[in-house]
């Protein structure tokens, strides 16, 4: 089946089995290996991408449903070599260790900051609860995201 969609801002077409997982198509067909698989069943969030601006698990999406939609992956967060504020904060505050959860964390945190820029720490934990991290205990991730939010507020 032929599917047309926008991927990281570019119009793409691909011929695939309709029920292929978006995650596999991104990783294998488009060689965008930034999205990771931790569970394949929607639990860990390592495969988080944006579809029409919403953070979703790409391991649970049949690629055929992407027809006409706009998909963004972690590879699109930085513009040129410039990391986004969330990415920079994750480095600075120690929000990444082994890094396997990090692309998903960076994506979800970016979505959370868009949706609720004034979220409290407790609310931010709730928004990030679909992203499992075994390394950090979450504290430094939440520190990073909250500090990015504060910086955005400071700079308007």
């Amino acid at each position: 089946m032929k599917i047309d969609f926008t991927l990281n801002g570019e119009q793409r077409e691909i011929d695939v089995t309709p029920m292929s997982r978006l995650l596999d198509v991104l990783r294998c067909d488009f060689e965008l290996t930034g999205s990771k698989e931790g569970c394949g069943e929607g639990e860990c969030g390592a495969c988080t991408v944006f579809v029409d601006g919403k953070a979703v698990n790409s391991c649970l999406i049949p690629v055929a449903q992407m027809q006409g939609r706009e998909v963004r992956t972690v590879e699109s967060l930085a513009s040129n070599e410039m990391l986004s504020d969330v990415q920079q904060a994750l480095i600075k505050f120690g929000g990444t260790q082994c890094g396997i959860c990090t692309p998903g964390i960076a994506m979800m945190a970016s979505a959370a900051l868009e949706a609720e820029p004034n979220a409290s720490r407790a609310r931010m934990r709730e928004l990030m609860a679909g992203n499992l991290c075994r390394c950090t205990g979450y504290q430094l991730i939440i520190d990073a995201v909250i500090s990015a939010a504060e910086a955005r507020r400071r700079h308007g």
Partner: protein
Amino acid sequence: MADFLQPQTLHAALEARAAHPDYLPIAGCTDVMVGFSHQAQPTGFIDLFGLAEIQGICADDGHISIGAATTYGDILKDPLVYESFPVLSEAIREIGAVQIQERGTLGGNLGTCSPVGDTLPVLLALDAQVHVASSKRGSRLVPINDFIVGYRKNALAEDELIVEIKMPLAPEGTQQYWRKVGTRRAQSISKLMMCVVGRLNGKDVEHIRIALGAVAAAPMRVEKTEAVLAGQALHEETILAAQDTLASEITPIDDVRSSAVYRKEVACNLLGRFLNDLGGA
């Protein structure tokens, strides 16, 4: 290669459904895609995700209707729902986490009809009706209690799709209670969930609905327990009697998530808590 249909109208979707009763309707796929590659594959799919006609929330003649393909994320954003049915909003807020809520739909929860489908006890306690439709036979409104038939089994016919869920607005003074007891706070499968909707007239129970999930093969209303309370003054003894009846009315099991003993005890504790609160409210 499996066939993949993307009807653009409800009419087309119903036609497709009638023409291909062996095709699987899909919405957010948060149930369908789990373990998908390890299961027998249907010959085709009918994609309902984003089908505008069965999305959205509206209020009319004392009801609120939610389109079957409305995502949880969209339901949460709607003030109509959280003002009228705070229990539904609370329940949805605890489903999976954001990524699941952006994809999962109410229609999908009813379609799967799992004993741990979190919205089902809420819909039971709210006396919801499920609006289903077929291209040949038109539509019908099925009371949620009849819609849920058994373990992962609902009353949907081969040629039908779920169109919307309708809930009657409750009269002033109705209290709603919800509690999900999960394995953890988010991304968690329920060990038990309970929804109680009730209204007192003075001390007397004028209206009572008690529904639970994960305590039997399918989410259920405990009508015997309700009967113990209906029309009675809400005293400590009535509450104790209701808890006793509840303990014999539910049949939870031991599984990887919890034990029968725990489920029973906690169900009774929560009922006591809610009824005491209702009595004091």
